[in-house]
Every structure is written in C-alpha cells, then in structure tokens.
C-alpha cells in the first residue's frame, strides 16, 4: 500500500473497530436508523469540517467557523422572518456575505502577513458580535419551505431516514474531495501547505489561493449555518459555540497534518463520524454523562496527534528531512 494512505487507513480501521465494539455491546446500533441519524445530526459539523480541512491542508487555521455558523443562522432567520424574503434568496445572500467575510480574513492574512489564528480570532469576535447585535434571542423560522425541507427524506431499508441535510453533507464531501484532489486549485492548496516559499517560486498565485481558501472555508461555514437553521428551525446568535474545535478535531482525527500539506477530505468524514459515534454511544449507554463526550474527543485528538507524530517522524528519519520544530 502507498505509505501516504497509512494514516487514513489507520483512522478508517479505528472507526470500524470502534463501531464493531459498540455493536457488540448494543446490537441495535447496527441499523440504518442510527446511520441516518449520524448523517443528519452531524451534517452542519461535517460541512464546516470540509472547509476546515482545506484551511488546515494549506497550513492555516480557521477559528471563526463556529461564529460564522451562528451568524449565518441568525442572518437567514432575520432575512426570512423580519424582511419576508424567500429562503432561497436569503440563503444566496447569506452565502455571499459569508464568502466575502472569509475573503476579507484571507486578504488580511496574506497582505498583513500575520498568523491566521489571530486574524480568524478577530473574525470570530466580529461574527459573534454582529450576530448578537442582530438579535439576542433565538428567532424561530416558520416558513413553508423549511417545513417542506424538514419533511423530505429518503427511506432506507430498515426504517432509516436519509434527510436532505444529511445528503447535502455527503454531497459537500464529494465535491470537496474532487476540488482537493482533482483540480488545479486543490494542488495549489497542498503546495501552499507543504512550503509557501517553494509554492510561490513554482508559480502558485499565493495571494489568490489564500484568499480563496478562507473564502471557501467561510462559504462552507455559512452553508453549515443554513443547515443548522434547517436542523433547528431557528437562528440563534450563540449557536455552535466552540464548534470550530470540533471541526478541527474531526480534521485531525481524519489524518490531516496540522502543519499543512497533507490530508484527505475523506478522512475528515471519518473524523466526523467517529465523533458522532462517541456521542451516540453515550446516548445508548444512558448512564454516562454528556461531559464524557468532551473527554473522549480530547483523548481521541491526543491519540491521533501522537500517531501522526510517530508515523511522520519515522518517515522523516528515513528520508533525513526532519522539520525544525516550529
């Protein structure tokens, strides 16, 4: 097997083993119902995590995703209920605003040459602040379109429901994978994460790519916010607080290197599913409290970072190309 697929294979294997262990304890977890809920409940996280994957492969980080999700949800709710726009028009506006927001952060990162985490931190404050000024309460969205979308699903054999937002997440992963692995933009992203200087020397348009990456990240954050508003039928400025960490955790668990230049969109899907599995297991168990989710995800995160460290330092020793610790 190609050694570069090893971390991805390890993640997939761990997911299968973990799922098998869960099924051994609770046989009813092996049903299309649970699988369908997996997709529906984690749709917004998955969509945002695809954006985070691009950003992290390029060697950056986006801490504003959770805030963008909150802002997008509130903005859709305000546009639909207060201004009476059709949801589709509102979605278009929301996605445009989110992309422009991300492009602005990308431009700041490129032109001011400041670490992405501090720029996106400012972005996070900004987005949460704007969302809280728009409204401080949760705005319920009561619209024909929302009801139709929520009631649409594809019935799987065994009673599982494949909802629209679950399908949308799978579609985003598919499109994201194609962009990352099959397009010129995708190879720019990898080149930038591997080494920005050599990427620039090879003729990668660094400025354009950086701006596009963060615009894409926030676009998907906006889409995740819309999905979240569909999922909860409301817009709330404090929605998805701390979700950026879940997204980053999903990306890392999926085998993407946090130093950039290496990773797979498919791995992130496994990362999201693994987090969903932990949550579902805790629900099934019933006696464990929900805070165990955080501890379990923290432990998983630690394990995978350690695993990456071991795999890549072993490879580095072989090729004598060890990176200087940052």
């Amino acid at each position: 097997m190609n050694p570069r697929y090893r971390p991805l294979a390890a993640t997939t294997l761990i997911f299968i083993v973990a799922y098998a262990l869960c099924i051994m304890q609770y046989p009813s977890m092996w049903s299309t119902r649970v699988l369908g809920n997996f997709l529906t409940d984690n749709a917004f996280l998955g969509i945002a995590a695809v954006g985070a994957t691009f950003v992290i492969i390029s060697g950056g980080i986006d801490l504003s995703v959770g805030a963008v999700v909150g802002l997008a949800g509130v903005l859709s709710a305000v546009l639909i209920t207060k201004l009476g726009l059709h949801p589709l028009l509102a979605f278009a506006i929301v996605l445009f605003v989110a992309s422009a927001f991300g492009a602005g952060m990308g431009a700041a990162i490129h032109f001011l040459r400041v670490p992405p985490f501090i720029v996106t931190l400012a972005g996070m404050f900004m987005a949460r602040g704007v969302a809280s000024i728009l409204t401080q309460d949760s705005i319920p969205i009561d619209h024909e379109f929302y009801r139709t979308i929520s009631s649409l699903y594809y019935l799987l054999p065994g009673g599982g429901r494949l909802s629209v937002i679950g399908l949308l997440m799978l579609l985003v992963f598919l499109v994201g994978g194609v962009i990352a692995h099959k397009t010129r933009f995708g190879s720019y992203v990898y080149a930038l994460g591997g080494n920005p200087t050599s990427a620039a020397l090879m003729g990668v348009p660094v400025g354009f790519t950086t701006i596009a990456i963060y615009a894409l990240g926030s676009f998907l954050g906006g889409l995740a916010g819309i999905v979240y508003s569909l999922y909860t039928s409301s817009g709330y400025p404090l929605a998805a607080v701390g979700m950026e960490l879940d997204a980053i955790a999903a990306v890392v668990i999926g085998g993407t290197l946090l130093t950039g230049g290496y990773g797979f969109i498919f791995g992130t899907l496994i990362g999201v599913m693994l987090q969903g599995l932990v949550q579902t297991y805790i629900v099934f168990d019933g006696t464990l409290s929900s805070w165990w989710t955080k501890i379990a995800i923290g432990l998983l995160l630690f394990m995978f970072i350690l695993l990456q460290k071991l795999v890549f330092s072993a490879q580095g020793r072989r090729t004598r190309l060890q990176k200087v610790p940052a």
Partner: protein
Amino acid sequence: MKRLQLTEIVRPQLLALACILLLNWFVFPGFFTITWQDGRLFGSLIDVINRGAPVAILAIGMTAIIATRGVDLSVGAVMAVAGAVAATAAVAGQPLVVTLIAALLVGLLCGLWNGSLVAFLGMQPFVATLVLMVAGRGVAQLITEGSIVTFSDPALIFVGTGSLLGLPMPAVIALALMLAAHLVMRRTAMGLFVEAIGTNRSAASYTGLRTRTVILTLYAFGGLCAALAGVIAAADIRGADANNAGLWLELDAILAVVIGGTSLLGGRFSIPMSVLGAVIIQAMNTGILVSGLPPEFNLIVKASVIILILVMQSDRIGEIVARRFARLKLRGKT
C-alpha cells in the same frame, strides 16, 4: 533599512488607555470618583483593576509562552478545573492552605502536561494545548459531578472579594505576581533564555541552552497562573461553574499580551505591558457597560482593536511607511 516603529516613539498602550478612560469619563461623569468605604476603596477605576485581575494573571503566564512562539489555548479550561478542585475541597471542609495548594497543584500538572507535549513530543503549541482545551471542561465537570458547586468558606471567598490595604484582593495578587514574574525575567537570565528561544529555537539549542526545560517551565508557570485565576474567579462567585468559568478568557489573555506589544512571532516581550493590556481590555468592557450600549458591542470593539494592532504591528505596513518616509527625506535633501 530600519523599520519605523510606532511603538518606539510613544508607548501607544498608555495613550490608548488614557483615551479609553477619557471616553469613559465622557459617557459616565462619575468614572474617576473614588471613595473610601468600609475600609476599602470604591469606584469605577477600582472596579476596572479588580475585574481585570483574572485576565491580567492569565496574561502574565501567557506572555512568556507567546514570546517563545507558543500559545496556551487551555488556560480557560484549566481555570475551570482549578475552580472545581478549589470548590470541592472547600465543600469538603479543607482549610484554605490545602484548598489553594490542591488547586494550584492541579494547574501546575495541566501546565506540565502541555509543556511536555510541546517540549518533548515537539507538537505545535496550538495543537498540544487544544487537547486540554477540549478535554479540560469535561474533567472539570467530572470533578463537580456536573453541578455548580457552591461554597461558603469565608477564607476562600476572601481571595476573590476581600481587600488588602484598601485594594481588592484579586488586584493585589495580580500586582504581586506581575512584580515577581518581571523580576525573575529581567533580574535573572530567564528573560534572555525566553527571548533566545523565541528568536530561534534551534540556534538557542546549539548555544547549549536547555530549551526543553525552559519551555516546560514556562508552560507549567502558565498552568499555575491559570489555576490562580480560576480560584479567584470561583471565589468571586462563591461557586465553581465548569461550563462557564474562564470561558473565552484564553482569547482575552492572548489579546492582552498582543496589545501589550509582545510579538506573536516571538523574541520580544514585556510582562508589565501585558498586564496593562489586560487593564485596557477591562477598561473597554467597563466603558461599554457604563455607556449603556449592549454588551455585545464588546466583541466587535475587541475585534476592531485586534485588527488595528495587527495593522500597526505588520511588517509590510511598516515597510510602506518607512519607504514613504525615506522618499520624503530624499526630496527634502535635493
């Protein structure tokens, strides 16, 4: 070509603080009034240093970490853990000394964990501390068993709400810690070690500096500071809230350090300036509160401040300004 640095001409932080205080005075005329009541000072200014103390304490620990090109994202979660430990110990009837030692020890352990990940496993600091940031709140909830543990131990409450020489206790602790940390950094070689690592870690190692030990120590100190802030925050509300104690404070602490002029690219730092940064943040918070604006504006103001500082610190803007300046000089000569 020497880069034009605004920070060298005037201390912009002091100027900013003066502006903010003046603005506060405009919107709230009683802002500078300080009265003596029940053996302690009262007034909005005192309130600013009192409320700013936890972030100041976090910033003291964070400064040296950022100066080595690191960052500690877990301080908020460590605050929650330390608060939970202190509260449960107080409820169990332990004396103040035991409570404090237990809480600080837990913070030290958290810091050592972060530090060993960064120093010995060579993880990116951002990632290494992310682990504890995610898991820490879970651990805190485990300790408090999911509820908010309230206590009524007067000795512990004194740490958060008492006063010494008329000044509120949290501010006294923050000031003492700042002085101690500053002396250790500037009167011993520690400060030079930190700056050497921040400028170039490999070069520092080649000169024989034990970079790993230094980094481990700094993260341990950061954990200790976070625990202290956590105890103060818990004592202030007489309870440990695992979900909300120290929430988002890691961001405030980083912001305070950055406002204080410590470079995120490492190598240059000042602990008193970070504390000043924390006071500036709190002055903004208080100003927004007393002006009657919704507290949500706080976030937008903070974001704008970060952007402003980034623009001012940016190399490229400095280059452009310097080039303009050079051109003007040339024109003056001919």
